[in-house]
């Protein structure tokens, strides 16, 4: 029954929109702006999260073997692999370390000529399993390594990542608050514009009632109106977001900043875009739901 009437509801909603064009334009632009602001935050957070996880993937621990220590490195390697959360272990001998160091210096290795004794320690590089790459686990592993008493030093470049994490969390909270505030405002404005369109059509609604229309029949086109507003608004905002993204990327590329390009900083993937549109549509629906609830309770 509802399905049979759906084409009618859509036609009705579209003619409502055409009839109160200005009011609808206001609503649609409100939704666009709200979703645009929200999705800008989503995109920033999305890209920073990507960045962090790429760095996190790279997290590893290097344990430098004490020069005093003499013993088979295969044995140590076996023991290291027994530790919790270790995926892979590489051994680098003193000689190898020196070779790598020399290679990195290239032509400038003059001052190494004077050195009699190889100053570089042998080391083990430990790759961590997924789920062990956070600060707590890394510190636990580092502590376990230190307690073995055979390493002169244990290092991991984790501290700054932690700071970055904190920064991300703050950004998420701000994004949620500002974006959420705008979304809330959008729902409020949508519900008010729908109230306005309902007010404009109250005579028609009265007549529909008198000839036997049910409440849901009267409400349905307004729901669809909100739905269309939300959908159109969020699609526009995504086009706007893409435009902003292109402008940003062009700017960044002329400055050749940090090797930023469309691979290292991609646009939001389709899954996110669909979610944003669905979200905007829901927003429009919510706006009409609120106003219809208020108005139909009174009559």
């Amino acid at each position, binding site marked *: *029954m509802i399905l*049979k*009437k759906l084409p*009618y509801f859509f036609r009705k909603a579209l003619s409502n929109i055409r*009839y109160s064009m200005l009011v609808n334009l206001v609503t649609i632009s409100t939704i666009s702006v709200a979703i645009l602001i929200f999705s800008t935050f989503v995109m920033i957070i999305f890209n920073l999260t990507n960045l962090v996880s790429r760095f996190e993937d790279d997290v590893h621990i290097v344990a430098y073997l004490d020069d005093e220590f003499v013993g088979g490195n295969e044995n140590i390697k076996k023991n290291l692999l027994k530790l919790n959360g270790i995926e892979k272990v590489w051994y680098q001998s003193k000689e190898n370390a020196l070779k790598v160091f020399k290679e990195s210096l290239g032509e400038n290795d003059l001052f190494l000529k004077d050195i009699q004794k190889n100053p570089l320690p042998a080391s083990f590089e430990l790759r961590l399993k997924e789920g062990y790459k956070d600060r707590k686990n890394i510190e636990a592993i580092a502590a376990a390594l230190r307690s073995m008493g055979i390493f002169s030093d244990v290092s991991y470049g984790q501290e700054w990542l932690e700071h970055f994490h904190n920064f991300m969390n703050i950004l998420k909270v701000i994004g949620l608050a500002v974006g959420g505030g705008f979304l809330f405002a959008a729902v409020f404005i949508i519900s008010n514009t729908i109230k306005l369109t309902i007010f404009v059509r109250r*005579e*028609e609604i*009265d*007549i*529909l*009632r*008198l*000839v*036997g*229309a*049910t409440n849901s*029949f009267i409400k349905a086109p307004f729901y669809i109106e909100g739905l269309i507003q939300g959908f159109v608004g969020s699609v526009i905002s995504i086009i706007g977001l893409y435009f902003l993204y292109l402008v940003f990327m062009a700017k960044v590329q002329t400055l050749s900043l940090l090797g930023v390009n469309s691979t290292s900083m991609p646009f939001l993937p389709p899954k996110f875009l669909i979610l944003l549109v669905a979200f905007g549509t829901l927003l429009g629906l919510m706006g009409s739901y609120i106003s219809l609830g208020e108005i139909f309770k009174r009559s």
Partner: protein
Amino acid sequence: MIQLYHVYKSYQKGANVIEDVSLNIDRGEFVFLVGASGAGKTTLLKLLFCAEPITSGQAMVNNHSLAKINPKDIPYLRRSIGVVFQDFKLLNNRTIFDNVAITLEILGMNRNDIRRKVTKALKRVGLAFMEGKYPLELSGGEQQRVAIARAVVNSPSILLADEPTGNLDPELSVDIMNILTDINAMGTTVLVATHDKFLLQKFMKRTIIINKGKVSEPI
């Protein structure tokens, strides 16, 4: 079809506008409701299609008890009653065709059936050629006939017509009355509120007199 039993109606604790009305109208009848301005004709009709609740008493319309009707059932009761409103209640921003089609749209009827039925109803009131016009482009009598077309387009079992000839010249009034008696002849129960004595004399039908909210019937 319509049964009232000691029905009272007052607006917001005011005086009784309808007072102790009992009457019975059978299926297929044609009845005039006559009374002076302010006698309560419109109010009585409004009670019948639940535009106003009855204050006390019992009333049955199409097997619905008006005193106990569930608000959810009101739309369905209204669909079986065609109403020609005293002030027409046409939508000025919709074409004549669309105004008449409203009654069918709410039933979820498909567009072809709507087109067929609306065209037929407009033809019956002699306005088939006007379907693309807007109400304000029509004369009062033409608007009245659009209101009638909208009321009868779905072949209701009851037709309530509130002053369907109000302010029309006698010839047009007879035209409209002929339309109503045609509809009655096809099985619809018709109740016409009027204060037009001329019509009563020309169309000898059952007549209910209403005076200050009380009804009486000359035998």
